[in-house]
């Protein structure tokens, strides 16, 4: 895509399916995108669209049925050596949606945050380990005396901080954050988002942010891919996507986001997207770069129409 940026993850013609034969269900198909080092790339879609499935495939949890996932130049899907897997599992970390479900209830915060360090022997001595954990705890805004407490003693926002600490202490290159703030209150949400941004500024970590809340996504992302029914329909830099959405589904999605302003909310109408508006029987669709960095899933007829419209608006 852009040449000046270093690609950290690259997905090519990715297909993920579950079951086989008659029961085969293709959850995700024809997925192509690159994530650049140091950026926040968001995958936005409704439930069942396949956004989490893609995230899990990058983590190696879901097997892929076609295509490649390349991470830092190496293919990481399909058959890979145990050694390579071990390395990747440190470099790619995950933050989950529900912090109460993803933390071991019977382990102390100290153990939860240290677990990865133990698995990879990432400390020189016991003092070194404790020092690392304490520093991390402080970074995420928790107190040293909370180190030996259990997850249930914390609020939702604090638990999510523990989840972030556990992921980031591994000094990952890529963090897959799957709806990390959906379960949190508005004011706590802001704290967690600011924290994620802080780590990005300081450590240059790359985020794959999986979300459905477009107002939050707009604030945090550099680029956004819109996914529906297992296909990426549009991909563009954040402001470009919000200002000039091209695919009708993206427009429908944007129009449905509630605006916290009574006067606008009263007059606003949301579009309904009807997939049967596309005529893909003979003229097959492709993922086309319609403007530099702005990709849309469309067929030749639609592409011609989009280009004509963009020219009329003076954008091309």
């Amino acid at each position, binding site marked *: 895509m852009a040449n000046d940026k270093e690609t950290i993850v690259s997905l090519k013609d990715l297909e993920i399916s579950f079951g086989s034969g008659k029961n085969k269900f293709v959850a995700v198909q024809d997925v192509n995108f690159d994530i650049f080092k140091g950026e926040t790339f968001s995958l936005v879609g*409704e*439930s069942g669209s396949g956004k989490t499935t893609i995230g899990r495939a990058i983590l190696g949890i879901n097997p892929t049925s076609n295509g490649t996932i390349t991470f830092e130049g190496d293919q990481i899907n399909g058959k890979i050596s145990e050694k390579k897997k071990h390395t990747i599992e440190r470099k790619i970390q995950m933050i989950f949606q529900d912090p109460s479900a993803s933390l071991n209830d019977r382990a102390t915060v100290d153990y939860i945050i240290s677990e990865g360090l133990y698995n990879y022997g990432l400390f020189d001595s016991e003092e070194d380990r404790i020092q690392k954990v304490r520093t991390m705890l402080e970074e995420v805004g928790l107190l040293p005396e909370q180190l030996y407490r259990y997850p249930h003693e914390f*609020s*939702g*926002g604090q638990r999510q901080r523990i989840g972030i600490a556990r992921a980031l202490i591994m000094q990952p290159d890529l963090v897959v954050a799957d709806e990390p703030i959906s379960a949190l*209150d*508005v*004011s*706590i*949400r*802001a*704290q967690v*988002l*600011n924290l994620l*941004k802080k780590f990005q500024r300081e450590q240059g970590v790359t985020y794959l942010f999986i979300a*459905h*809340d*477009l*107002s*939050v996504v*707009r*604030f945090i992302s550099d680029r956004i891919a819109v996914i529906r029914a297992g296909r990426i329909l549009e991909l563009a830099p*954040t*402001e470009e996507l*919000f*200002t*000039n*959405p091209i695919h009708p589904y993206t*427009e*429908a*999605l*944007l*129009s*449905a*986001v*509630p*605006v*916290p*302003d*009574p*006067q*606008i*909310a*009263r*007059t*606003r*109408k*949301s579009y*309904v*997207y009807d997939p049967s508006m596309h005529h893909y029987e003979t003229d097959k669709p492709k993922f086309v770069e319609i403007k530099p960095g702005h990709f849309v899933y469309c067929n030749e007829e639609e592409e011609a129409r989009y280009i004509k419209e963009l020219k009329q608006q003076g954008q091309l």
Partner: protein
Amino acid sequence: MSDEKEPILKIDDLSVHFHVRGKTLKAIHHVSMNLYEGEVLAIVGESGSGKSVLTKTFTGMLEENGEIAGGTIVYKGKHLEKLTKDKQWEGIRGKEIATIFQDPMTSLDPIRTIGSQIAEVVVKHQGKSKAEAKKIAIELMDRTGIPNAAARYNEYPFEYSGGMRQRIVIAVALACHPDILICDEPTTALDVTIQAQILDLIKDLQHEYGFTTIFITHDLGVVAAIADRIAVMYSGRIIEYGTCDEIFYDPRHPYTWSLLSSLPQLAQKGGELYSIPGTPPSLYKDIVGDAFAPRDPWAMKVDFKADPPFFKVSDTHYAKTWLLDPRAPKTEKPALIQNLHERMAATVAESHLENLDLTRTDAKEDETDGE
């Protein structure tokens, strides 16, 4: 909405306590509130602020360890706080005051067909025959937007999507023609496009059936779309209430200011998102003064000593903050939420949506903003 009108539901000085392992949790603290016929009252607050607990008292659905520690709830002349047995609640709960919850699967029986669950309610509350009930149930399914309702009558909840299930829960609630419909975060678990459809549906049905709605949510975007009036809750207290426009364009309580400031739409790209420092107070302890004071950058000494009363802003708008005391220093709302409408309009306009008319219909707000 003015005070002269007789409220359909009148809550006066209500307190609710929970007994947890020998300790008392004061979930609702001296709350008074009126609900007027035909309106949509939104109750806004974060988790633990008491918004769900408050409305549970209207249908006698407090958990076993909870009790109404004081105050009154008067509905059509009946004192609901005095009802203790399920038998006494019959005829009110579900029939006159119905509730829709966040997760439709908590309200639906997974091993019974959708249709039979609606029909059951019709038989029980309207005394119809089974055949009539089926007909009414299909009509309701149709009305709540279930395509091909007659054919889907015999399907099970698992065969429905989340949005469809929530439509069914709404159909069940409406089967009794309730006076008051309590919607407890009904769209929180749904996708945005489905959320928009469900909100439209609730609005349409309200027009048609004429029920009064209490809408509980933490999403200010949803509130803006649906509410006539808003009550903001914090730590078991209502701290501000007013019309939808008053709360968005002329908020007076520092907590309301903070809540609005946290909206991601207001954040500068690449900057920090406004976040409220600290956490809400423990409700096991007695709170002295204004509950929000420890997190409030505008807190005055008095906020740590005395619980503020409600000060009147307009006939419809009241806020529980000492900042409105005539002796308090004049304090403007934070710059971030001044011109809220213009800022929001700008983000929407950038989104190249439809041709919105972005001029204010009510010019009065501009004057009260004090700019």
